[in-house]
């Protein structure tokens, strides 16, 4: 099966072509089925590959499948190769598994939308690009997948482009991602200049010979890759596109935020760890960015009124955790959290989408409330997802989050400051997600009268994926216990031991583990309890507390004014420059040159026009004159003797 791994890429491609070319002509309803089936088949192929991979001895679990020679020019010989190893297959399973459930959910959610075939064509394109990204065996293919993900997310976020703000949100995501793409491209160039090749196997195995440890070149490569990773994973300072990306349909939010796209940055750092480990500077920056993003966006999520925005900021925050993990060299913890996050964040988004769908597009928490009885599936889905997100004991998030916190404290490149930030975020997370939960499902109903009468309950096609993911969010953490504790470690070990020695832990790390676990559980419960007190028990407290610190509240509500800052620092100067160029430079200089050239030609030719009188006599005279001149010349020159 491993030599047929390219089928993983083929199915979404076929699905994309079907929906975009045939489906809209034949049968619009079939697009959803075909698209879901395509992703499902990829998942099956991924499972088959996994089982075969596990059958191989640990050190040969790397299949570098060269499909054809892609580019051959001079000393560049670039194969179109896909790399199948535990890391990429894990990503494939997450992308296609969660992606499949989201596709099924979307067949219900998007039912009756005029752009139904277009939606599923783009969804399949998105999955295709993401699979290309994770299966790529060289940096160029990685960049292709990277760009493809950026494009299809742009098209999906701006799916309802009839509203200008949706189109603007798509553009914003595209611009931010393009900044990252530039970083990725420059990194690939640097790799090529220094290694003369671009395939992972060659680059990683030669990294320690061709680059100096912590030298400027390797740091530059890592930081450029990091630009790409921060843009795609919406980390500081390139995070602003992600909350705006909520403008897209909710399945898109689930697909982008849970299974794909945003995890690409974490995957990239894990994949390129042989390079990153040669640059402690870059690793330190990654960890710092991760911890800061986690804390920063968790505080924003505390006060957001829009249910999807709360989840969006929570995604940034959780990705911050993953960055922190890979930044301190604990790749397995990062990847583990990536997987569990895919489960519980997908279910949170789907449940939120169910609520929004039922309320006819209402996303504001202050116009929800008391929906527990009306939407039981969504209620339980959101509850389990929220518990997992908050790290409630024995849910999925509990195991993976604790691994990261322990790593932050006990890795050799970690520090207590990073660990303390991670702990603080646990409490904030418990609070903000349960604030959203209580506001949406508990308390008095604040749903508007006319909406309440037309509430449409989601059907089985939306309910079933939510149920599956609810179960996964509850038990996903036990993936790490398949066949004894540390299953993830054993599974991914061959990848992270192949080209580099793992980052060691400080002494006494084991002793830290249990106290930290206890502490983080207590903090999580504290956050949940506070939310319960403020939004269920004494609902008036929320307003009171907000009133105590009006400045802080406004600061958080307006997301630290980051958007305004970028608008002021970048957008406004660029617009002003554009206006200056169009008002002053263009008419004077550009038009002057262009119109001046035209005017010169016209004047010259109108002078020549006078010669063409239309009288035969004039022409004959001119011919005679010419003949005489030629004759005189020949006589003078002695040409005729």
């Amino acid at each position, binding site marked *: 099966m491993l030599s047929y791994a390219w089928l993983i890429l083929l199915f979404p491609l076929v699905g994309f072509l079907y929906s975009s070319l045939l489906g809209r002509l034949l049968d619009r309803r079939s697009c959803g089925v075909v698209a879901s089936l395509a992703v499902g088949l990829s998942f099956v192929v991924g499972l088959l590959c996994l089982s075969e991979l596990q059958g191989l001895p640990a050190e040969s679990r790397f299949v570098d499948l060269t499909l054809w020679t892609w580019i051959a020019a001079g000393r560049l010989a670039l194969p179109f190769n896909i790399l199948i190893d535990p890391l990429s297959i894990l990503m494939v399973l997450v992308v296609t598994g969660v992606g499949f459930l989201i596709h099924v959910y979307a067949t219900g959610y998007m039912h009756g939308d005029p752009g139904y075939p277009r939606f599923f064509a783009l969804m399949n394109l998105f999955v295709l690009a993401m699979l290309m990204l994770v299966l790529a065996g060289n940096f160029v293919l990685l960049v292709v997948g990277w760009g493809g993900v950026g494009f299809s997310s742009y098209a999906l976020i701006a799916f309802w482009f009839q509203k200008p703000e949706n189109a603007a949100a798509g553009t914003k995501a595209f611009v931010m991602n393009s900044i990252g793409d530039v970083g990725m491209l420059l990194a690939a160039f640097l790799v090529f200049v220094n290694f003369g090749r671009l395939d992972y196997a060659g680059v990683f195995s030669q990294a320690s010979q061709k680059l100096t440890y912590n030298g400027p070149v390797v740091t530059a490569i890592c930081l450029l890759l990091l630009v790409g990773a921060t843009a795609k994973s919406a980390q500081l300072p390139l995070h602003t596109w992600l909350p705006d990306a909520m403008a897209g349909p909710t399945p898109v939010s689930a697909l982008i935020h849970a299974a794909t796209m945003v995890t690409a940055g974490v995957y990239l750092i894990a994949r390129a760890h042989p390079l990153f480990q040669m640059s402690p500077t870059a690793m330190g920056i990654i960890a710092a960015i991760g911890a800061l993003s986690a804390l920063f966006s968790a505080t924003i999520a505390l006060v957001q009124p829009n249910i999807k925005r709360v989840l969006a900021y929570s995604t940034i925050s959780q990705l911050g955790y993953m960055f922190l993990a890979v930044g301190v060299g604990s790749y397995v913890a990062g990847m583990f959290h990536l997987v569990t996050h895919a489960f519980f964040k997908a279910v949170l988004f789907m449940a939120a989408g169910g609520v929004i769908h039922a309320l006819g597009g209402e996303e504001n928490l202050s116009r929800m409330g008391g929906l527990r009885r009306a939407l039981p599936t969504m209620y339980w889905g959101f509850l389990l997802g929220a518990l997992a997100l908050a790290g409630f004991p024995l849910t999925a998030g509990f195991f993976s989050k604790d691994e990261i916190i322990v790593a932050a404290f006990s890795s050799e490149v970690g520090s207590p400051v990073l660990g303390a930030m991670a702990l603080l975020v646990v409490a904030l997370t418990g609070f903000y997600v349960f604030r959203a939960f209580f506001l949406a499902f508990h308390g008095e109903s604040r749903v508007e009268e006319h909406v309440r009468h037309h509430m449409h309950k989601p059907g089985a096609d939306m309910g079933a994926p939510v149920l599956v993911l609810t179960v996964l969010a509850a038990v996903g953490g036990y993936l790490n216990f398949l066949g004894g504790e540390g299953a993830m470690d054993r599974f991914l070990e061959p990848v992270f031991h192949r080209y580099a020695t793992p980052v060691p832990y400080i002494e006494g790390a084991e002793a830290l583990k249990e106290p930290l676990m206890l502490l983080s559980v207590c903090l999580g419960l504290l956050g949940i309890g506070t939310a319960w007190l403020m939004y269920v028990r004494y609902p008036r407290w929320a307003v009171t507390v907000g009133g105590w610190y009006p400045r802080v509240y406004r600061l958080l509500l307006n997301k630290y004014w980051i958007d305004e800052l970028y608008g002021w620092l970048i957008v406004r100067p660029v617009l002003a420059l554009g206006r200056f160029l169009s008002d002053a430079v263009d008419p004077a200089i550009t038009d002057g040159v262009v119109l001046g050239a035209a005017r010169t030609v016209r004047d010259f030719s109108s002078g*020549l*026009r006078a*010669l*063409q*009188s*239309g*009288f*035969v*006599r004039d022409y*004959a*005279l001119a011919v*005679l004159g010419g003949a005489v001149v030629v004759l005189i010349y020949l006589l003078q020159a002695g040409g005729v003797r």
Partner: protein
Amino acid sequence: MIAPVSHYLVLSGVIFTIGVLGVLVRKNPLIMFMSIELMLNSANLAFVALSYNFKNVDGQVIAFFVMTIAAAEVVVGLAIISSIFRIRVNIDVDEVSSLKG
């Protein structure tokens, strides 16, 4: 007794000049055509005379070519004149300037 070649060349030059003046001065296109014929045939005369003088047959060959081309030119020219005449009765060349730039 054959006249020297210079006589022929002088005669040819005179006829050619008459032809040129005819084209430039006369208004009637038919007369202008005759003048063009004069010029062409003066050239023919020069060709044949020089051919005889240098004992080289090339000039006579060219004279035949010129005659052929002259015949073709007359056909085209008369066709143009008759179509102009169809549109406007007056075919005075000074009145016809629709090719003015």
